[in-house]
């Protein structure tokens, strides 16, 4: 079975942990996030007939007090950039994180998730910005840890990218 290390990156409170929790049944307590700065779960998937075990590194969200431990990204086969669709600044943060991630993990596949798509009324990100990113080759998906929108699809997509 292939194993792939996948990281979850993003500003704090964008819903990284909720996305993972929506996707897998973890065994570690969330307190790891605040102590060690990372919580790891695993999820077996099948990509093109090949069994792949995704090791999901849910990394502590970056905020004023805590920087993301970029060393956790070493050896990652892919990562998610997660932003909160209702908070424009989290997207900016994601763009910066992407650059830092690429510096550590190299040019590995990644997917940008605009989370909390269920909160349409509060949506804060204009389509033009997204179109620009898509045009530069990024994969951008709207997701919702609440409704489950695009959650499985996003993981499946990144898993597939990492095995290509």
């Amino acid at each position, binding site marked *: 079975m292939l194993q792939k290390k996948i990281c979850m990156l993003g500003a704090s409170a964008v819903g990284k942990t909720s996305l993972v929790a929506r996707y897998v049944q973890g065994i570690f307590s969330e307190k790891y996030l605040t102590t*060690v700065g990372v919580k790891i779960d695993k999820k077996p998937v099948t990509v093109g007939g090949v069994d792949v075990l995704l090791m999901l590194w849910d990394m502590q969200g970056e905020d004023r007090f805590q920087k993301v*431990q970029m060393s956790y990204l070493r050896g990652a086969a892919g990562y998610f950039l997660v932003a909160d669709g209702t908070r424009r600044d989290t997207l900016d943060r994601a763009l910066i994180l992407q650059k830092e991630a690429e510096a550590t993990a190299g040019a590995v596949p990644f997917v940008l998730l605009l989370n909390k798509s269920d909160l349409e009324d509060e949506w804060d990100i204009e389509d033009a910005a997204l179109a620009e990113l898509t045009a530069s080759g990024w994969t951008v998906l709207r997701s919702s840890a609440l409704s489950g929108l695009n959650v499985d699809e996003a993981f499946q997509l990144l898993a597939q990218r990492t095995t290509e």
Partner: protein
Amino acid sequence: MTSRTHQGSGDPADGLNADDASGHSSPDEPDFDELRQILIGPEFAALDDLTSRIEQPARFSQDVARVLPEAIARRAAQDDRLAAALTPTIEQAVRTSVRKDSHVLVDALFPVMGPAIRKAVASALGEMIQSLNRSMEHSFTVKGIKWRLEAWRTGKSFAEVVLLHSLVYRVEQVFLFHTETGLLLQHIVAPSVEPPDADLFSAMLNAIQDFIRDAVGIEAIDAVRFGDLKMMAERGPLASVVGMVRGAHPKDLRTVFQVALEAIHRDYGASLERFDGDATVFDGARPILEECFQARYETEEKKVSPALIVVVSAVALLLLLWGGYAWWQSHKWNGFITRLKAEPGVVVTDAGTSGGKYFVTGLKDPLAADPTALLADEHIAADDVVFRWEPYHSFQQQFLVERARPLLAPPSTVQLSAANGELVVTGIASHAWIVEARRLVQTMPGVTGLDEKGLVDRDFQDLLEVKGRMESIVLKYVSDTTTLVAGQERELDMLEKTLGELRAVAAKRGVTIGIEIVGHTDSTGTEDTNVRLSEDRATELVRMLDAKNIDTTGIKPYGVATAQPLRAENGPEDAALNRSVTFKVSIQEKEP
């Protein structure tokens, strides 16, 4: 014409020729060809040779065969790709071979399979025995009872609890993970250890390593202790080995881990660098990791519990006593059976124990010794033995005599014995007894005859004695008369008595007797006169006996005159003796 030569020489030349023919056909063609030959002739030849090498399968394969071993060796040294590429083919080849004829592989593998299986079985058995030994060691101690309670309380097996307590140290798990990604490559667990989720464990461990390094600035964590359990980490540039150790391990355990890690870097360096998430490449590293499985257990030889000693000694003593008793019993029994078999008139056909009792089956002569008497000699209780005898007649000589005695009822003057199957009778017996004995002997089983050479017939002896007395009687007569000389009453009485005795004895002996009364004369007178006189004297005596009512049947009187004188006549005394009557007794056996 030259173009033909080229055509025959090979394809490349052929191509050039064709090009020439189509594009630059000119009258100078032979010259041009010649020039071309001069300029690139040798290259043509080399090219021809090369082409034929490649296009002729035989030559090409020959060339490849020449470089193939080296090519394989070089590529194998470079990385594992060749092995990976060949694996499906080899697997398929093995499968095909097995399908076609499984014996080929079986024969090839046979020499290694035995040792491999033996090793596996021995290791499994060894583990079991070790665990059993440890359990045994602690079973009879106070501590052991406490541990049993603990096992019952915690729901663990007793062996597990013993293991935990008697453990000095043990490497319970070994993880091999990829240093960069924290992905698990291999994980091995000691028997009876509850394995964690190894994937998550190694990933998290790696994260913690990173965290510590980033936060505290230490390059790597060597060890983390959680109570009795210690995590020992050995971090390499490409891979890391982590062991979970329970108990107080020796210092050199770390060296063992280092050696294993070095070996993995040496053997799997290329694979580690290219690692893309496929951990199966590292299956071959398991034996290296298994070297890290080390353990030591307390040996409590010096502290054997007194209770255990008492119990074991008591059991040993009981066993010894029981063994000794059993041996003694069997010794006694065997002695008895040996004696019984030697006993005359006893044939043992089967002997042994059944239903807690001894039994003996066989044949026994009623005259043989009583086996129960032998039992007493061997100190075996008669109640413990069941005899099943079939009666039979033994032909042993002592039994012949014993069996004959009550039948023959010999008089006290007769001794019985046996020799060569014959009954030997010695001494003196009545004729009647002898006759009966002869008859009875014929009916006795096992007796071939009667040896009576040493036996005397008492009645016959009596007969001879009476006969002798009879024949010694001499009755004297007055000269030239049939008148008895006076004063011979005693002789006459004796004659009467002896005659009666003779008849009685003969009857007893069962013989017929003949009595001759022989008359004699002296030498005076004529022969005729003497013949008549001698006959008269004998006849006159018979008449006299008749007159006395004495049975004279069978008595034959006759005279012999001077033919058989009692004494040669040399004087009157001799003549007086010759004037007499004498007696002859003859004995004839009766016709049967």
